[in-house]
Each structure stands twice: as C-alpha cells, then as structure tokens.
C-alpha cells in the first residue's frame, strides 16, 4: 500500500509489529538455515521478487500479483520465509518506489508476517496430504497460498479499521478487499502449486514442508557415488 492510507500512529504501531515479527523470525530462522538451505532461501527471495513483478488480470481493469508468503513458508519454512518476503518488500519500497515508506511496517505485517503465517499453518494442517504425492502437494500448496492471500488482505482491513479514513464504510472495504483477494488467491495458488511441485520434482529435500518425509537422497545416491 501507499503512504497516507492509514494515519501516522497506526503506521508506527504496525512498524513496531513488523520489527517485532522480523526479530522473532531472525531468531527462528537460525535453526532452519545451513550451507544448503541458506542459498536456497536467498533464491526464494529473488524468485518472489521476480514473480511479484508479473501482475495477472483477475477482472476487467483489475490485476493481482503473487504475495509469496505461503510459497516461501513451504519451501524454506515460516521464519526464513517471513524474512524472504520482508526483504522483497523492503527492496521494492526503497529501490523501486513500490509501497510507501511509512507504510512499510504495515505492508510487512500483512504480506510477510500474516500471509506467511496463515499460509504456513494451512500447509502444516494439510501436511499429510502434501507428503502423499505430487497431487497432494499441489493441492496443499494451492490451498495454503489461497488462504494466505485472503488472510493477508484482512491485515489491511485491520489497519484501515484502526487508522483509516472513517468516512468509508469498513464493511465495504472488507468486502472489496476479500473479494478481490480471493480471486488473486487463485492465481497465487496456481503459481505456488506449480513452483513447489517443480522444486519437489527435482529436489524434494529442499522443500521445507517435506522435510523428514522425502527419502533421503544420500542413501539413494551413495552407491553410485562410490561406484564412480
């Protein structure tokens, strides 16, 4: 969102929420990062930046784009995922003048914290389907992304309720935001399902949600390594 849509005190509050969330994510992320997952997570952030540039049509005159929270959480975990989306939003605001500077805290709260958390919790709830095969994984990724997107849009509704222009009906804003983001969520779901299944097809060991379930590649490849 741009600056000016929510008032200064509310921007400060959600700036604090964002800083607190990022601090927690920094602590949690350490556990999930190693020599292999650290570069993977950097690439996930770069990929989300790229895909966020691609607005797709959802209605005549209205577009949507990936938010990326569920995608990041499924691939690299919720803590690292929240950091990935936070970095993308910060780069967009500071370098590409996309998303206001005082609104950065609210934007991080919505897309990096709420979107990632909601997407991850949905994916976690469906994990036993995700581990059953490609279709289960795709359905899990789609559902997680859809719910993450709609929940993230409710973050804006909350901020607008606290510090937005009271002249506009909150019910109207909520209906429009949720309706449009349900449509965007379908696109988000498709992109997330395609990406996650593509990664899982070649490297299931690099998909956080499948950790501990994918057959360890080491066991399968070590005889070949020894033979060569």
């Amino acid at each position: 969102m741009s600056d000016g849509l929510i008032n200064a005190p509310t921007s400060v509050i959600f700036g604090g929420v964002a800083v607190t969330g990022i601090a927690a994510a920094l602590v949690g992320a350490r556990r999930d990062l190693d020599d292999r997952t650290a570069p993977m997570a950097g690439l996930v952030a770069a990929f989300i930046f790229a895909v966020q540039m691609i607005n797709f049509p959802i209605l005549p005159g209205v577009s949507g784009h990936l938010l990326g929270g569920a995608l990041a959480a499924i691939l690299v975990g919720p803590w690292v995922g929240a950091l990935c989306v936070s970095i993308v939003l910060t780069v967009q605001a500071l370098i590409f003048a996309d998303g206001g500077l005082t609104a950065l805290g609210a934007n991080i709260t919505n897309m990096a914290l709420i979107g990632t958390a909601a997407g991850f919790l949905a994916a976690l709830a469906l994990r036993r389907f995700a581990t059953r095969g490609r279709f289960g994984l795709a359905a899990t990724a789609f559902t997680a992304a859809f719910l993450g997107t709609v929940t993230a849009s409710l973050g804006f509704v909350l901020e607008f309720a606290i510090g937005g222009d009271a002249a506009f009906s909150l019910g109207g804003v909520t209906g429009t935001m949720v309706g449009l983001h349900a449509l965007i969520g379908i696109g988000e779901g498709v992109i997330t399902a395609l990406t996650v299944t593509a990664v899982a097809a070649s490297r299931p060991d690099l998909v956080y949600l499948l950790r501990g379930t994918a057959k360890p590649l080491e066991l399968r490849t070590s005889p070949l390594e020894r033979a060569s």
Partner: protein
Amino acid sequence: MTRTKRTWLFFAGFALVALVIAGALSYFADSDPDGLDSATLKGCEVVQTPQGEQLTGSCIAQRAEDHDLAAGPLADYAVGGDDRFTGLAGVAGVAVTLALAGGLFWLLRKRDRTKT
C-alpha cells in the same frame, strides 16, 4: 556428479528462472491497478488532465501520497522513468534481492561441522 555440484546446478537453474521472469516476462505484466489499489480506488474515476492523472469522486486512494523516492533511478520498475527498460530494472532487483537475502541467510546459517 557430486551431491554438492548437483545442488549448485539446481540453484543456478532457479536463479536463471528468476532472471528470465524479471527480465523478460515482466514486459507482459498487466498494468491495471492491483487488488489493493482497486479497492482504494472504489468510488473514484481516474481522469487524464494536463496536470496528469486526477481522481474524481470519493475514494480512499485520494489520501494516498506520492512515494518519497518516486524520483529514484529505478522507481516504478523503469530506468530513469523509461519503462522500455523494465526488464533491466527487474534483473537489477533480482540481483539486489539475492545479494541481500542470500548474504543475510549465509551469515545466519548454522555452521556445518560435518561438511559434505
């Protein structure tokens, strides 16, 4: 091929996909307002005037402020305001994001004592 080598090959492929999306596919992005912008524009009409775009009617977006960094060299995913270079801006964004995120995550990672 060693496991490490295959992993880095996978990473190179992933990076290439991101670069192609930001560098080439970005030209095909829909330029209509996104979900949040549309929601805040509800009640307004965008009219072209000699002073630029103006909003008539009554909508939330009328309170939106111009971006403080709107004059930046890569503002709005263009280069110096020229959106023929969107792909270049996108590639720069991917590179900066990868450097910042990759650098941060590399610093945060658990040091692997049982190096593969």
